[in-house]
Each structure stands twice: as C-alpha cells, then as structure tokens.
C-alpha cells in the first residue's frame, strides 16, 4: 500500500515534469484542447442564453379576451374557471374594468390630455378581460379558436390575437431555428474538438515513443509507464479549462454592452457570472476527460509487450 502511494506520487511528479519540460509541445496541445473547448462552450452558452432570452419574450406574450360591458364579473369568473381546465393554458388572470382603468391611469399619468379625455366619461369606458398565457407560443391558435367556438363566444367583445399573431409566429420560427442550429453546431464542434484533441495528444505520445521502450528495459511496469501520461492528460485538461474560463470572461466583457437586457433582464456577463461554477465545472470535467481518455488510448499502442 505504502509502495503504491510512493509510486502514485512519483508518477504524478513525473507527469508534472513531462508537462513543463516539454514546454512547447504542452503549450501546443493545451492550445488545441482550449480552442476546441472554447468553441464548444461558447456554442453552448449562445444557445442556452438565446433560448433563455426567447423564453423571456415568450413569457411576455399573452392573449387578451375582452368581454362585452354588460357581462357580470362573476360570469367572467365562471368562464375563467372553465378555461383553466384546458391543459394548453399555463396561466389565466382576470382584469376587471376598474383595475384596467387604474392601470391605464398609471400608465398615462404623464399625459394630461388623456386625463381630461377620461374625465369626459361618466362611466368607465374600459372592458373587463381575461389575460391568457399559453404553455407554448404555438398553442395560441388553438386556444383562440376554442374560445371563438365556445358557448360563451357571444359575451366576448374581442380577442386581441390577430394583432399579435405575426409577432408570435415569428418568435416560434426563431426559437426553432436557434434550437436546431445550436444543437447541430454543438454536435459538429464537439466532434471536431474531440478529433483534434485526440490527434494532438496522440502526436505528443508519439514523441515519447522511444522512451516507453527505455522505461520497459529498466524494469518499469506498464502501469508505471502509463500513469505519468494520464496525469499529463489531466494537466492538459485543467490548463485548458482555466484558459477557456478566462477567454470566456474576456468575451463576455466584450459582448456585455451589446447584449444588455436580453438575457433575463441582464447581459452575457451576468449570465457568465451567474453560471460560473457550472461552466467551469463542465469545462474541467470535459477537459480532463478529453485529455486523459485520449492519452490512455494513444499510449496503449506503444505498450504492447
């Protein structure tokens, strides 16, 4: 047991020595690994951030159903309860005409003309309404046609869906494109990244090829020969993860002004800082996995005897 720990320490030191004594080769390998990880992670961040941004917009979309002025509040409440049973509907809120007026006054407090215009009315000119959020934007069509065809269609004064329809449809298209492009690019870049990294590490191992023979001759076991290179793979992974997290920081800082307010009310930098540990953790795990697995596979062929 003690001997195993000694050997583990020695192979670790060995790996560390390999790493910095082969400075140039290590630098090249880490750069390639880092570039792959950078491309993969920025693709991932772009698609996650843009889908968050789109979800935010999506939450702001709603459909308002206005009722005729003679429809009683409790009748509307009844309709609301009935609609709430539809599974396509995520949320449904009742806005009474009094609340609508209050909100309208607040919204236009700065505008004295509207205030005077409102004062002309003896009665509240606004209508009571139900505000409906669908689970997904492509369900508004069904919801609207369901309401238009329902038993209470006669009480409905208007539905402000037609005006929003184009915007909603455009959003649906954008979401689908972003998801598909993000996924495709992600897969392509991951594939390229793995391939490049694997080959770079294989070349590094090739440079050590003659050493394996020497190590065997002086009585090193295969595990003892292999361990330093596994550690070297870990160092590649850690160094490239650290470089990529720095590179992403710089990129986010650079892009922050452009993306102001687009992601959950913040910018790309807020997203980066908010998810720092998740991003860094994933980078570390994938960097180390890529580095060690490539090293292990690459070294196998040189340890046949």
């Amino acid at each position, binding site marked *: 047991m003690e*001997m195993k720990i*000694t*050997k583990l320490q*020695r192979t670790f030191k060995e790996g560390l*020595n*390999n790493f910095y*004594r*082969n400075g140039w080769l290590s630098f090249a390998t880490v750069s390639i690994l880092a570039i792959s990880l950078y491309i993969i992670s920025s693709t991932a961040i772009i698609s996650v951030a843009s889908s968050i941004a789109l979800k935010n917009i999506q939450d702001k979309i709603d459909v308002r159903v206005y009722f005729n002025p003679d429809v009683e509040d409790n009748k509307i409440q009844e309709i609301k309860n009935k609609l709430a049973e539809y599974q396509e509907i995520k949320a449904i809120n009742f806005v009474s005409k009094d609340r609508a007026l209050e909100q309208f006054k607040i919204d236009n407090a700065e505008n004295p003309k509207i205030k005077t215009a409102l004062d002309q009315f003896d009665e509240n000119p606004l209508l009571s309404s139900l505000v409906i959020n669908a689970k997904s934007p492509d369900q508004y069509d069904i919801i609207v046609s369901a309401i238009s065809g329902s038993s209470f269609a006669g009480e409905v004064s208007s539905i402000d869906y037609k005006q929003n329809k184009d915007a909603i449809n455009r959003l649906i298209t954008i979401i689908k494109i972003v998801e598909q492009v993000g996924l495709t690019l992600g897969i392509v870049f991951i594939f390229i990244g793995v391939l490049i990294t694997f080959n770079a590490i294989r070349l590094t191992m090739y440079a050590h090829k*003659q*050493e394996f*023979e*020497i*190590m*065997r*001759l*002086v*009585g*090193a*076991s295969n595990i*003892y020969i292999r361990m330093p290179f596994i550690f070297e793979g870990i160092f590649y992974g850690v160094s490239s993860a650290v470089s990529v997290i720095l590179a992403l920081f710089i990129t986010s800082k650079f892009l922050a002004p452009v993306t102001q307010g687009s992601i959950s009310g913040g910018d790309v930098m807020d997203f980066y800082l908010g998810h720092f540990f998740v991003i860094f953790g994933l980078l570390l795990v994938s960097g180390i996995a890529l580095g060690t697995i490539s090293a292990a596979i690459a070294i196998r062929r040189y340890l046949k*005897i």
Partner: protein
Amino acid sequence: MLKFENVSKIYPGDFVALEDINLKIEQGEFVSIVGHSGAGKSTLLKLLYAEERPTSGIVSFNERSLDSINRKHLPFYRRNVGTVFQDFKLLPQKTAYENVAYALEVAGEPDEEIAQRVPEILDIVGMSNKMGKYPRQLSGGEQQRVCMARALVHHPLLIIADEPTGNLDPISTWEIIQLLLKINSLGTTILLATHNKVIVDKLSRRVVEIEDGKVIRDNEKGKYSSVRVGAQSLQ
C-alpha cells in the same frame, strides 16, 4: 545460470534470425559474442531481456524458463538484468542523476535509499561531477557511463551489453571495457556483443561466434577470429 536449449527465432516472413542455439553460461563468466551485423547477436540478447520470445526452444535464467514468466512479472525479472546499448537509451528529459534514479523509482525503492545509492553508483562510473547534466550535454563516453550506472544500480546478476562501444572513441571504449571487467570481477555475469576485434583479443575471455543464426564457435579464452585467421588478416 543462463541456458539456451534448441532455441530458434523466426520473424514473420520466414526470416530465420536464430536456429537451434544451445548455449550455457555460468555465473561470473565474461562472454563476448561476435559475428557479422545481422548474424543474430542482438536477437540472442533480446531473448535474454525478454524483449522477444523464442519461436521454439527454451531460454532459462537460473533454471527458470523466461517463457513461464507472465507479462505482469516481466518488469521484476528485468530488474535482475542490466542492459547497455550502442545508442545509450537514456531518457532525454532527465538528468544523469534522474536517469539512474528512475531505475530504482520504478521498483518502488524508498526515497532515502535512492538518494544514497544513485550518487554512489555514479561515483563508481566516474560521473559524480556531472549528475545534473542532461544526456544532450554529455559526450558519448559519458552517456555510456551513465547507462552503466543505471544498469548496475539494481546490483543485477547479469549485464547485457549490446555493442556498448559502437559509438565511442578508442579511449572511452577502453574505459567502458575496464568498467565491465571491474563489474565482472565482483561476480556479475557479463554478455558483450561486439564488432571490436581489438577488445575481444585483448580480453582473452570466452568467445561465442554466431553466423547466420547459428553458433559456429565457442572458445574458452578465444580470439575475435580463430577459425578464419587468414581471411581476417587480408582485410
């Protein structure tokens, strides 16, 4: 101590490197193996440090067939055998000290022991003043002495030297041979494959000559070429 019984080695493509070799070497002997390039000297030595396995026949070390050692235990066997080569085979990223220490590290020797034995052995081969140098900073003779130190550090029972002086000038060559003799005088068996006629003649020890994969001569206190003196002197 070493025994070859009807050993043949045939490489893929029906290339016969060794054919029906029978040879016995006792503990403490100093044996020179001579023969043309490609005669099979290196193959014979490779069988001994288990880099290659015989196609047929048995190679045994202290009564134990090398074939019966499983792969996992080969490193342990190799620690009983020191090897020295024409191209030195030092690890380029390690200093002279680290190259020698490596042979002990792989065996799991404790640090204190390594720190004590490595300078000792480097002193024996006369390299104690260049322990911190990398192989590229050393001359051929110096590199070969580091190799000797590495081969010796385990106190092996057998040293296999494959053309150890092939890349060295006459003075370094002689220094290496002196070292081998010194090691031999302490009881270690030496197997020396060489082309160097002067050395073999001067040593006046056992000579085994190999030609076309067969042992054609085995003389106690032999010369480089006793059979074909005339042919040699014409060169």
